[in-house]
């Protein structure tokens, strides 16, 4: 199937990791759905920006580290990454604090991004 014919799906991460498992399950969704004919993107919004911060170490919680898998997502056919500028700023974060380098977008660009996608999956 040509890229143009592929349906565009946007996973929106809005929950912080570890306190809930939404981020973990959103990640599983990205890992699997890339194998299907879908054009996948992921946007980090609100506390979702905490999903991809550096230095996460949940060893004491005995759960899997979430952030470390994101740099591998292009191998799983996930190539589009976005982060909401205001969400970074509110948390005092910059791209240097993140394990990947998403495209920094403002609110209007996020709204436009939603319009481009056939499905928005919230995690």
């Amino acid at each position, binding site marked *: 199937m040509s890229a143009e014919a592929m*349906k565009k*799906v946007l996973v929106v991460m809005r929950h912080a990791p570890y306190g*809930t*498992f*939404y981020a973990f*399950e959103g990640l*599983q*969704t990205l890992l*699997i*759905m890339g*194998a*299907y*004919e*879908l054009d996948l993107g992921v946007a980090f919004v609100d506390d979702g920006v905490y999903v991809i911060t550096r230095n996460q170490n949940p060893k004491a919680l005995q759960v899997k580290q979430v952030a470390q898998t994101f740099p591998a997502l292009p191998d799983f056919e996930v190539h589009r990454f976005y982060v909401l500028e205001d969400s970074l700023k509110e948390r005092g974060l910059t791209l240097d604090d993140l394990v990947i380098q998403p495209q920094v977008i403002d609110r209007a660009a996020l709204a436009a991004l939603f319009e481009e996608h*056939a*499905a*928005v*999956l*919230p995690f």
Partner: protein
Amino acid sequence: MRFSILVLESPYQRQAADSAYRFARAVLEKGHQIRGIFFYMNGVHNANKYQKPPGERNLGTLWTQLQQEHNLDFVACIAASTWRGMNEDLALPGFRIAGLGQLALMIQESDRLVTFGG
């Protein structure tokens, strides 16, 4: 128009599963199609055949009736089920247990995906 629905929460703790059920009913009552309903995360608990809320709507029974009336595709995520102790033996009739790929197929083959969660 063809819909798919994603359910992320169990019954009886948050309203999401109830809302998803009522939305699904309304889709069908208006004569539209449902390609599938995917139960993910705690949503897999919707499939539990032993749930028995006394004197109230039994969401499991309602789901099974809806599935049977319209021959719908209900999938409880196999990974989420394994984590949470849901399996074929515990599942209500009408639910199958399968992978996230089924959600990908539902999305491909629907005009709309609507998610209900926490």
